[in-house]
């Protein structure tokens, strides 16, 4: 079996969620099939500037074929187009222009996929919202397996993505919430799909004392790992934690790991360590009492899974359906939707040893049951086997005619999104794969 993994950026040092997800999957599937990665020369996800050499190279034993991006993203133009398609009635042409402005625009990549389609059994497209996935799935629908990595943002309400979700051969969802959202927005229930997620390279042995010694942290602490960004809920986390620290003077410290996009408050109980190596990161997680995930939008939080793998409970933002659902289904984390809930839940995890231990144990079990690599690999292989048995469905829905594409009658994406039901998925019917 020969597989292609198509993703917007790729590299051992590229740490975006979807990009890392794609790399892990490519490296794991390489044990069962011949895998080739098709990607762009971009390293920066904001500008898509060509920074890596085009052509073939090998990353961790996987052949990687890079194609140049023809235009960098202009943030002002992209912002203007986003506002138009997200907030007002617009045309299909407006959405296509939005897709081009979002990028990474790489026609050479799409041409290569089309030309070499027959040499692949299946092509895995990561991140539905980007240029490569939309054009790739439309051209290779009969072999396309989509890994949407969709969050609850207005892009899911754009009309151009409906045919892509309905036309792909199979869909590998990250969470039950993601599947529920995509199915509600695009009515693609007919397309075979499975909730998979991704595993993680969690080391068998961690050394918390090494971390404490290296970073001179002696007190118990909660940890946040990720970009320090207001969009990730960090502003709210800083505010809540400072209030909590004033109320509980001898409570947990907060350790922050990641690149700062926003200023970090100066507080004697908040320690910002910057970017850490994987070894240090896992040591830090093992040394922490718990992980805090303040993000409002996640398709799957890998760091939460890593915390669970190490037996650490998670305190998540309850306004993020995916995180809340994960906490409830795993019984390995608590969640908050206000400061009072943040304080109560953090305090419970801090002070109630038996509860903390039980949640940690549940997390470890949950990770082993659903996110261990053999489980993930099996789900992918089963999906490929199922798709091989089935005939490819009819061709993907065509785009409207030139004139129809310019008719301004497509509702605002935000309006579509507001009609999509939200909430955590608590119970799942395994036969139907539907919310019970």
């Amino acid at each position, binding site marked *: 079996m020969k597989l292609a993994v198509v993703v917007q950026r790729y590299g051992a040092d590229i740490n975006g969620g979807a990009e890392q997800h794609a790399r892990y999957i490519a490296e794991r599937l390489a044990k069962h099939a011949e895998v080739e990665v098709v990607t762009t020369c971009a390293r920066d996800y904001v500008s898509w500037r060509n920074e890596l050499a085009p052509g073939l190279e090998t990353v961790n034993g996987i052949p990687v074929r890079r194609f140049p991006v023809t235009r960098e993203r202009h943030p002002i133009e992209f912002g203007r187009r986003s506002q138009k398609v997200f907030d007002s009635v617009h045309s299909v042409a407006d959405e296509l222009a939005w897709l081009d402005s979002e990028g990474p625009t790489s026609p050479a990549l799409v041409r290569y996929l089309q030309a070499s389609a027959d040499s692949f059994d299946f092509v895995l497209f990561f991140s539905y919202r980007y240029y490569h996935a939309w054009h790739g799935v439309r051209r290779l629908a009969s072999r396309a397996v989509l890994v949407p990595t969709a969050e609850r943002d207005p892009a899911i309400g754009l009309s151009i993505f409906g045919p892509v979700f309905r036309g792909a051969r199979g869909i590998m969802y990250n969470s039950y919430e993601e599947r529920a959202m995509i199915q509600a927005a695009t009515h693609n229930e007919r397309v075979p799909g499975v909730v998979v997620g991704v595993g993680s390279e969690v080391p068998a042995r961690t050394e918390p004392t090494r971390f404490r010694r290296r970073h001179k942290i002696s007190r118990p602490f909660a940890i946040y790992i990720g970009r320090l960004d207001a969009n990730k809920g960090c502003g709210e986390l800083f505010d809540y934690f400072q209030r909590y620290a*004033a*109320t*509980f*003077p*001898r409570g947990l410290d907060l350790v922050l790991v990641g690149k700062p996009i926003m200023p970090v408050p100066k507080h004697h109980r908040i320690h910002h360590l910057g970017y850490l190596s994987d070894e240090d990161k896992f040591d830090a997680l093992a040394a922490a009492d718990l992980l805090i995930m303040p993000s409002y939008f996640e398709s799957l939080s890998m760091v939460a899974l890593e915390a669970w793998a190490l037996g650490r409970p998670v305190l998540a933002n309850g306004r993020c359906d995916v995180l809340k659902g994960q*906490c*409830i*289904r*795993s*019984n*390995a*984390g*608590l*969640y908050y939707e*206000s*400061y*009072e*809930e943040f304080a*109560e*839940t953090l*305090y*419970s995890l801090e*002070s*109630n*040893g*038996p*509860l903390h231990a*039980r*949640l940690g144990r*549940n997390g470890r*079990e*949950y990770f082993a049951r659903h996110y261990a690599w053999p489980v993930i690999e099996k789900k992918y292989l089963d999906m490929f086997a199922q798709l091989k048995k089935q005939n490819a469905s009819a061709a993907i829905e065509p785009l409207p005619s030139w004139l129809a594409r310019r008719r301004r009658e497509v509702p605002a994406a935000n309006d579509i999104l507001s009609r999509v039901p939200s909430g955590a998925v*608590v*119970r*799942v*019917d*395994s036969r139907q794969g539907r919310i019970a």
Partner: protein
Amino acid sequence: MDVRNDSVDVEQIMKQVRARIREKRGVDYTEEEIRELASVKLERFLDPKGVRSDLLEQYRSRREASTTPRNYAFEDTTIYESSRPFLRALRKLLNPILKLFFNPTPVVESLHIQSKLNDSYNQAEALYYELIHNLVLETTRLGIEVKNLKMRVESMSSRLDFDERRARALEGVVQYRPGAVAPLQPPAGGGDRERGGPVGSVSNQAAEAERRNRRRRRRGRRRPGGHQSANGERQAAANGGDAAPGDAGGASFEPPPPAGDAGGGSAES
């Protein structure tokens, strides 16, 4: 398929968390409602935080910047005064002619009173200045003190909360040796005691032993050969007075593990 682990129910815990928050708040307001209430309060009522600690400084600088005219004494001779004695004498001489045109006396008197008023106003202003100075200092000091006290109260309540929960958590994990007596229970209703209470309850066993001891003492007094009863009493005393010698078959209370272990002595409470 229910994908949840059954031994801990996160949803149930969250319900308890919300119930605790409701208890603390008294009324179940949403975040938005609380914010709205807070903003209404600030708009409608005098905000004590509005007393600024830099008020005194502003007042002082304003006082220094203002150019108050010099006060002067106004007597009945003031209107005739001059630096030249000749002119002063001439004005006095012509005074009767001036009085033919108008009466200067009320003007002189009113200006005299005004001068006195100015004097008293200046003295009062110095007093007001001192008063405001002291008030601002006191208010600022009180504000800081209130803030400190608030923080201390919050800190103490959180510590109390912490201790209570810790005690509850520890009570939940106290381990007893299999076959040992159940932990000491706080006194329940009288009905339980009358019925004998839960099997193996230490408090009930102690009460029962005490009753038996009393019966034995009474019998001992009636019986001759007091040395036997004295022996019995000594033995009972040697057993801590808890049980008669014949009660040795009863289970013994296993003390909780040391404080370092998960358990920490809460069984004695």
